[in-house]
């Protein structure tokens, strides 16, 4: 036909499909609302933590005359123990007045001596920060008095009893941050792979069910359709992920953890790389799950092996440690979440992420190859669910 030669310099078919996938999704209200909501939640969470971080706990401590001296010591020394606690002293006449003040919420707690020590009475809920401060200060005061009583000093009594901690690699706070960010990585991967995967699978079913796939199959090779769908969804997932990570890192730089931001950038970049390879591998499998179903209702069944795999990745990513973690960090697709976590914790040889990423890329290539064959054969089978075995051996 006369159209033959004029069609070859047009946009390649897979690019057309990719563009349609992206455009139809980003103009979809639920996708936009979901993304905006997630960003708002991130900002809100970081804002809340920062505020929590900066906030000073103001507590009023009531003391009857027999406890004023001790209470004064607590109020004066509170800042040394915990700089986020500000204690105001209120002197009360007697026990009855103290109980009344507590009930009226004029004071948050009432300090009074009991046999063999002191008691902090509160109305119902525990005043954690005040209790901590009171424990330390009371102990110091009493210890000092007792030491003086036996003609010694606190320092002399405590000499040689301290246990301090030291880390060869980083410090405790850094390890905590690594742990928390690692959790975020695992969660984001799971979340994105599941949401975008499900979406991809149901768009495959939509095309299969409405038979538009036959019109498409008559016009372009199905390989291009699969490639376009996988690339479009991968691009969307990666862009969304990068938005979340950017918001997270920028947000973090407004909190007291800002010193960690530069150190987190490297692992975050690695994570994006692992996410990309891992997501492409899984996206092909999701497309297969969609092509095996003949109606949306079938997706539950055809995607079960995949959702199990996602759960294994999620819990594996969260719970593995020690040698298990090292091994898992090379095994695709679990490596997509485990290796970035190890990189965060530090102590990973420079070659390790490269090897893991290489293996993951090989795995992705295999799933693309297998997925393409299954997808192509299952997609045009009508009449009920297609089993993997049928799809693999079916004639085209």
């Amino acid at each position: 036909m006369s159209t033959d030669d004029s069609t070859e310099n047009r946009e390649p078919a897979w690019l057309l499909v990719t563009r349609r996938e992206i455009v139809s999704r980003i103009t979809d209200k639920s996708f936009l609302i979901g993304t905006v909501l997630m960003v708002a939640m991130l900002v809100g969470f970081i804002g809340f933590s920062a505020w929590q971080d900066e906030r000073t706990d103001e507590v009023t401590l009531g003391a009857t005359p027999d406890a004023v001296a001790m209470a004064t010591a607590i109020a004066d020394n509170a800042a040394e123990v915990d700089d986020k606690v500000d204690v105001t002293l209120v002197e009360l006449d007697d026990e009855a007045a103290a109980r009344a003040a507590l009930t009226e919420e004029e004071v948050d707690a009432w300090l009074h001596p009991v046999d063999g020590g002191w008691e902090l009475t509160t109305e119902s809920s525990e005043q954690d920060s005040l209790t901590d401060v009171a424990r330390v200060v009371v102990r110091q005061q009493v210890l000092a008095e007792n030491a003086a009583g036996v003609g010694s000093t606190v320092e002399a009594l405590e000499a040689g009893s301290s246990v301090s901690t030291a880390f060869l690699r980083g410090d405790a706070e850094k390890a905590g941050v690594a742990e928390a960010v690692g959790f975020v990585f695992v969660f984001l991967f799971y979340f994105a792979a599941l949401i975008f995967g499900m979406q991809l699978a149901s768009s495959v079913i939509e095309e299969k069910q409405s038979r538009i796939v036959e019109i498409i199959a008559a016009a372009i090779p199905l390989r291009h359709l699969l490639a376009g769908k996988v690339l479009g969804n991968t691009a969307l997932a990666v862009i969304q992920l990068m938005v979340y990570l950017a918001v997270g890192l920028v947000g973090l730089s407004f909190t007291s953890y800002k010193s960690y931001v530069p150190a987190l950038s490297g692992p975050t970049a690695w994570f994006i790389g692992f996410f990309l390879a891992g997501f492409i591998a899984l996206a092909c499998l999701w497309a297969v799950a969609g092509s095996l179903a003949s109606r949306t209702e079938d997706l539950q069944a055809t995607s079960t092996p995949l959702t199990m795999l996602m759960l294994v990745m999620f819990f594996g990513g969260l719970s593995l440690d020690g040698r298990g973690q090292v091994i898992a960090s090379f095994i695709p697709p679990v490596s997509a979440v485990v290796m970035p976590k190890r990189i965060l914790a530090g102590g990973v040889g420079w070659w390790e992420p490269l090897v893991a990423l290489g293996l993951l890329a090989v795995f992705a290539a295999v799933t693309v190859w297998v997925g393409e064959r299954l997808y192509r054969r299952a997609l045009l089978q009508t009449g009920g669910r297609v089993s993997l075995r049928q799809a693999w051996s079916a004639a085209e």
Partner: protein
Amino acid sequence: MLEIRELTRRFGESTAVDRVSFEVPAGQMTGFVGANGAGKTTTMRMVMGVLGIDGGEVLWQGRPITRLDRRSFGYMPEERGLYPKQPISDQLVYVAQLKGMERTAARTAVAELLERFGLGERAKDHLEKLSLGNQQRVQIIASVLPRPAALILDEPFSGLDPLAVDSMVDLLRDYTRDGIPVLFSSHQLDLVERLCDRLVVLAHGRRVAAGTVAELRDAGVPRFRLVLGGDAGWVRDQGGLDVLDLDGTTALVEVQQSGAEQHLIAEATRRGDVHEFVRVRPALSEIYREATA
């Protein structure tokens, strides 16, 4: 011209299409009839390359069909194949681009066709918001983009009201007038009889009849109806004839030996008045029923 030669497709043990051959000549409407499961859809999907072929071949302009040939065909799958939740102009442009049109050309062509079908105002509406007849129009637009070399339409008239059928027919005639071959399947025989230049009947995966409507109706053993002034009982004694029905003055006969009908009419005029002597051609539905029985 599109030629289907000995086309065969098996699904496991069963043979869905068994050495089916027919032609779809340029500029003609060829109707494809048969019961559900007769193999019409399977045949059309093989012609479009959507389904693999186990045996036989499809020829286009006398040579084996290629992917690019197929890409220039307009195809309408059995169940309406477009995205329900997308604006109609967007998806039509997308389909046109997949078929190799350049984007701006596709936009212009889609706008023109939508206008022509009275859907210009609805270009931004989602497909599912349209009535069934309008959805069908959108579907046909999708299959004629870009200007098709041939049209393969699976049940294009199902679910359409008579007016919508007429406007669809007008459109198809526009294409046949330009020399484009059209193959469409249907099980509305009256419609097929009215529209088609040619007809292919499938039953259980086999072609049981093919030809123009007139050819098919003339094909069987000729039948004549004779209405006389008096009793027609004597017709039974005439040679070379098979009396199918005899009712007072009326007889329906099948000619077993050619020329026997001439003897019959001569004998009838000799005996008295002849009120009617006509060739009876079976209705298409009758042929269909016999062919597929």
